[in-house]
């Protein structure tokens, strides 16, 4: 099952690469730098919404069922989410240097992703610091619920913080109208990253289960 998912991931990422570098047109103002978007946007969307969404469901599921398997899904989802958010921040930085002329700026979305990254790290830190597995799972589930419910709050607060006093005209790059092949390339890459996320989570759940069995 996991093996099939692995091959599917390879296939989807391959298709995504072909679309990003072969089919999608070269962006007029930014040039090839814009192609980072096909890595940056999918990892941001999956890391921000899918990973935290699954974290929320799995955390509530654990408190309701006390099933270790459900807790492992929450744990894995947080880990993969943090990884994807890290990819988002690094790829955004690499894109920002030639486009905005700086590695880092307190742009609304950049800040949102970074805060969620730190929240995810806090969650993983908590898990790592509690030795008793049952207790770690219980506390982590509570923090996981708070963290996931915080996503819209962080999103809105940071957006208002950056945009109310400073119109984003300078920081809103990209073409005015997105061409169709560009959009298709992006959507295929988002789908590919969703499958990649599922594959990583499945792998991590497997590993966590074996770890628990070995330690037990």
């Amino acid at each position: 099952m996991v093996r099939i998912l692995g091959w599917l991931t390879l296939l989807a990422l391959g298709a995504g690469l072909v679309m990003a570098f072969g089919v999608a047109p070269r962006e007029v103002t930014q040039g090839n730098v814009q192609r980072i978007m096909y890595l940056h946007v999918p990892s941001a969307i999956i890391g921000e919404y899918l990973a935290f969404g699954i974290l929320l469901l799995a955390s509530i599921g654990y408190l309701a069922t006390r099933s270790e398997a459900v807790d492992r899904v929450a744990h894995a989802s947080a880990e993969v989410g943090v990884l994807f958010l890290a990819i988002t921040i690094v790829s955004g930085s690499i894109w920002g240097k030639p486009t905005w002329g700086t590695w880092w700026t307190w742009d609304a979305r950049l800040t949102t992703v970074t805060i969620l990254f730190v929240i995810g790290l806090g969650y993983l830190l908590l898990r790592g610091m509690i030795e008793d597995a049952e207790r770690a799972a219980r506390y982590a589930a509570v923090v996981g619920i708070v963290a996931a419910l915080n996503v819209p709050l962080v999103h809105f607060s940071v957006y208002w913080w950056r945009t109310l006093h400073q119109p984003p005209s300078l920081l809103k790059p990209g073409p005015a109208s997105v061409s169709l092949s560009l959009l298709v390339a992006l959507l295929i890459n988002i789908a590919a990253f969703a499958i990649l996320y599922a594959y990583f989570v499945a792998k991590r759940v497997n590993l966590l289960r074996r770890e628990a069995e070995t330690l037990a």
Partner: protein
Amino acid sequence: MSFARRALIVFWKDALVERRTKEALNALVFFSLVLLFVFQFALGPDRERLVALLPGLLWLGFVLSGMLALGRSFLIERENDCWEALLLAPGDKSAIYAGKLAGNLALMFTVEALLLVLFTVFFNLDLTGVLPALLVVVVLGTVGLATLGTLFAAMTADLRARELLFPVLLLPLEVPVLLGTVKATEAVLSGEGLAAASHWLALLSAADAVFVVVGFLTFEFVIEG
């Protein structure tokens, strides 16, 4: 015994202990005073700059003193071996949360009132006109800090790395509350009034509501076992 009565007993117990020992309050008053000196030394005597930074400084003071207050609210139960007795209390465990939350809010409001007075004296401010609006922001922000803070304080009270974990868990999750309070305070202090910050107040209310509900619902999972 009703829920409210059980919560009130927990609150009353904490208030009584605090009144007799004055442990937290003394330390927090002293801490607030030192904090003001630190701000003054770090930023220099330029009054214009201090006033411009005032909303941020004010909330920095509230957050730092608040974290000290919150962090020890369950620690005293562990240290005094009262934890088990607290858990033996019959009925819904979220009454303990309500009592502790009320106690923390009372302590934080006291320290915040004091900090405000110290700020007005040391930085030569006149807050008389904006005080009611400021009060609204302070209450909304403090509730946001205290709800999650009380929950996480119960969680980290008997962990080895509690001093480290408590702020690391709490601060990132409080980012929306902190942004909202600082921005709303800015609007109030600049004389724009609450209307200019209505979306921030809505966000703060939403955050408070989410945190209170999650706090009450998940507290029993935190203290079991």
